[in-house]
């Protein structure tokens, strides 16, 4: 099965670059299926990226973020081996989380 969240956290000098790919349909509710029926809206509403107790980034999303949301940002103060965790929630109350280590 496909990993629903892919995270990469790479230390370079003082900064750690984090890239997150979340596999999610991000349906707007405006798209019609082959039979002409609207596909219900289904999208991630919040994303939180953290290292231990420290929040690194919080995103409040709408259905206008592209399918399979991609996020990239940089933060200070990490060392190799530190955990970087991602958790998302969607409008159906589903949630997923995943973690990687800084390399």
């Amino acid at each position, binding site marked *: 099965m496909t990993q629903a969240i892919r995270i990469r956290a790479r230390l370079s000098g003082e900064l750690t670059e984090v890239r997150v790919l979340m596999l999610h349909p991000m349906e707007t*509710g405006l798209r019609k299926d082959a039979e002409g029926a609207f596909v219900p809206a289904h999208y991630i509403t919040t994303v939180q990226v953290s290292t231990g107790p420290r929040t690194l*980034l*919080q995103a409040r999303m709408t259905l206008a973020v592209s399918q399979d949301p991609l996020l990239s940002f940089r933060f200070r103060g990490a060392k190799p081996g530190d955990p970087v965790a991602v958790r998302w929630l969607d409008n159906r109350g589903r949630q997923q989380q995943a973690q990687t280590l800084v390399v």
Partner: protein
Amino acid sequence: MTPKPPKPPAPHRRRECLAQLAQGGLWAALLTCGLPRAASAAADPLELAFDATSLDRALQAMGEHQILSRDIVITLPDVAEDGAFVAISVGSALPGTSEISIVVEHNPNPLVVQFTLPEGTEPFVATRVKVAASGRVYAVVQADGKVYANYRELQVQRGGCA
């Protein structure tokens, strides 16, 4: 989370769609369905901004006096072939940057995403957004209690909001 209702016959599908939009917490959908005005007035400014269905209202809800700033750098292609996937990054050189939002002029709900950046996180984010039609793409930045904005024009060859 409510269980998914059985699929109704075709004539009801539009209603089903609206109902599901509403269940999904989309205030815009609720408003379209005729919810009293007072309900939206009670919402906090961020909710108003997300609910806004015009650029002006979205920007206004994010702060009355926005300062146009070249310290906000928006990276976008000049022309996007597919409006469903437009790569964008926003960087801010404004001291104390704590929030970055992306607002797309002609989207049904212009405010697309809002990032909160705690101290220690660089004032920079990159993502991909849907853009319904050619027009301006704004980045709104909160820094030291003030609200700044910048924008870029984007040409979209195929709109991406279906």
